[in-house]
């Protein structure tokens, strides 16, 4: 199996496809290099569990804290963050945040300007696929990283299709390196 294959078979990518994240260091470097990163987190973050039995949202929070990345909680999951004493930068529908990321004039949640890196995690696969494709075409200055366990061809960077164990390991490494380990 090719590493760069869409997880949902029919959701094939276009001529421009995501580069594979072969090392967690790639993600760490991109986050550190970014001036204005944003982390878009979908509802599966509260329902998915990783191989160490921790909820995905706990990894999200740690990654956001270590990388100092503002979080947008999509769908209805803002309460899941607040319950864990973590305040997202915003609670906003996935469609709305993607729309704003394609607007050069948008000033972001803090009024300081458009974002230059978007990390995505926890959205339904096919919905992330199509939102990433919008960003690929209409937000040329934005780099996107899909942190889900399935290959997303429309991101700038994506993991290949991973087992839960490898996904857990990769997310753990990113969190660790961002935290200075």
């Amino acid at each position, binding site marked *: 199996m090719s590493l760069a294959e869409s*997880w*949902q*078979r*029919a959701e094939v*990518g*276009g*001529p*421009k496809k995501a580069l594979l994240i072969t090392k967690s260091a790639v993600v760490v470097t991109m986050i550190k290099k970014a001036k204005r990163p944003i982390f878009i987190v*979908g*509802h599966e973050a509260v329902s998915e569990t990783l191989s160490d039995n921790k909820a995905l949202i706990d990894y999200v929070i740690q990654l956001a804290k270590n990388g100092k990345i503002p979080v947008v909680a*999509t*769908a*209805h999951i*803002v*309460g899941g963050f*607040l*319950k864990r004493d973590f305040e997202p930068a*915003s*609670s906003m*529908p*996935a*469609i*709305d945040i*993607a*729309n*704003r990321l*394609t*607007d050069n004039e948008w000033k972001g949640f803090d009024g300081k300007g458009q974002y230059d890196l978007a990390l995505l995690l926890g*959205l*339904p*696969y*096919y*919905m992330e696929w*199509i*939102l990433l*494709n*919008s960003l*690929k*075409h*209409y937000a*040329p200055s934005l780099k996107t990283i899909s942190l889900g366990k399935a290959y997303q061809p429309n991101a700038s960077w994506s993991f290949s299709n991973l087992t839960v164990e490898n996904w857990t390991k990769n997310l753990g490494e990113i969190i660790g390196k961002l935290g200075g380990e």
Partner: protein
Amino acid sequence: MSKKDVRLKVKELKTNTGVIKDLELSLGRIVDETWKEPLGPTPFPSVTALREWDMKLLKRYKPFYMPFCDMCCLCTYGKCDLTGDKRGACGINMSAQQSRIVLLACCIGTATHLGHARHMVDHLIEKFGRRHPIDVGGLNVEIEAPVIRLVCGVKPKTLGDLEDILGYLESQLTQLLSATHTGQEGSNLDFESKVLQAGMIDQVSMEVADIAQVSAYGFPKADPEAPLVGLGFGAVDIEKPVILVIGHNVVPSISIIDYLRDNDLADKMEVCGLCCTAHDITRYEKRAKIVGPISWQLRFIRSGVPDLVVVDEQCVRCDVLDEAQKIKAPVIATSEKNCSGLPDRTHDSVDDIIADLVSGKTPGALILDPDKVGEIAARVASQVAPARKRFKTLPEIKELIEKAKECKKCNECIRACPNMMPITEAVTAAGKGDLTKLAELYELCVGCGRCEHACSVGIRIHSFIVKAAEKQMKEEKFLVRSGRGAIQDVEIRNVGSPIVLGEIPGVVAIVGCANFPKGGKEVADITTEFARRRYIVITSGCSAMSAAMYKNDEGKTPYEAFQGAFEAGSIVNVGSCVANSHIAGAAIKIASIFAKRNLRANYEEIADYVYNRVGAVGVAWGAMSQKAAAIASGFWRLGVPVIVGPHGSKYRRMLLGRKEKEEDWCVYDARTGDKVYVGPVPEHLFYAAETKEEAMVMIAKLCMRPNDTTKGRAIKLTHYIDLHKRLYSTMPDDVHLFVRNHNDIPITMKDEIAKILEEKGWKETRIPDPTLLPRLIRKRKEE
């Protein structure tokens, strides 16, 4: 009718054969001079007649494109890569290409309803005559065809009058479709305007189809107490021969029911249906049954229950013939649009066709004469049933477990599943004798069968799921209110004021197909939640069925627990897909009956009224089809926002407002001509929600309108905030945008909201008489 080319009036004409008095001939279209309502500005609007209105909407709700494909493959210049800012060989860019595909989809959807309407009207004229009156509600419905009146400016009185309207619709559709050819339209916004035109044409088409069938077949006529009819697998009496009808065009099914009635067989045979034909058979015969939505096709056929499958048109699985053959059930195709590769036996003798179908000499037949279908279907089913003995293709449990052991755990089934259900895990458990995980997938499965085609070892996964849940499936027995058709004038009078003032918090139309992300339960949840909150909830199509499939603590289905009248706290099933026109019709009638606005060919003004005053929202949680796209676009042009489920993002274009941009949310005050900020109401025109919870909060939010009174706005805010707190566990962060003055604040939340307003630097604004149309300003402000 309003358009005419030549008119000839003769007071008295003496000829060799007699005297003719008061002869009036009009060449072109028939003129109805008895209708005193003045003709508005846009009778039979051309493709560009309402472009200005469209651009107003598109300025506020800018298209947000989400390309579903990066290429254009429509001509031999291509494939062209349109990534980023590249253009294709014809010069088209990505935005124009996406909107072009949206237009294509809407043209397909509109053509489907329009083709349906044309067939229905032609058939009914043949049966009942051109002079058969249009009657959708007797004395209870004076405005018999609000959409036709609004769009065309004519008042159809007979089936024959509908023919003229169909001519206009067909001409428009041809123009719209031609715009998608290479080298025609190049602007995405003009494509979008044409999408809205297609949607409007679709609404008229649906209305033509439904008022024709309601009038001629005697379906419930705007009846709030239309009968409760059986729904679900368990509602079908399998002791009788079973005829299954699938599709949307009820004509051949009516013929079957007529034959059974005429031959005293109605109680001896079972007629049941899937998808919208199912709705319409119950509107004709309350003993008929609805099996379920479109996604139940595979499971019901494989269960072996049908002795004969009759397909008409739209949303019929392309492999019905293969599946039916496996259970030894013949198939009769009845529509020119869906011949299924079967031999045309229309002109053969009835006895010959029956003999061939019963003996299995031929697996099916194309019969384009509905009258013949009735007799053949009844006789074939009754002869086939004893021999078939409910032959099914579901595996036995032992066989299932043995086959499940062959699973290679390659996950190809999951990768083929639209909802990525945990199939591997369930099949693995089944291989160990535990079928519970397979059974759990039953309610979530959309029934597409893609998993089976992906399996390299030939595990028939969908059948496994159905088998594991067989007991549950057989117990599915619910009641749904048969489609009532139009809304009565008196109902509109009763609720017009509270809707427009905002005191009924909204009208929520739950419509469309069954491509749900997490099963039909979510539709049932949304339906009952808003009915409990005393919104007016309207249902139609497959969603109307899914909403019925869950019972409350007292064992009652939603249609038993809530009234069917168009009033607060009701659940109103209008009927099949084409009955969606009655939802638009109700909104239009509020403007006409309650507000006394002229509706005749006055589209822009009425849409402006609906947009600014009628807090209606469409929800198509499982929308999958091109028809659903067309239906939605008809609502957008009328100013009614539509929410789809996450799969709806694949429609590749949303129409999104930006609530923080104050300049986008100004209207004219029709009293003074002032431009007034009214807040982002409604915030979006077309929007895909990720979860049911998100959708529910958005429904409440999108019901707000600039015209809400303070009391009405306070009620709407109460629901919005309450749902947000319950489902998001927080106060919404945009509540300040919806408070215009302190009286808008829900009384129980005064302190909490006052604090937010202070933090946000909120300023009071006034409530105008809102309009987007400068021509409706009654008194211009002095320069």
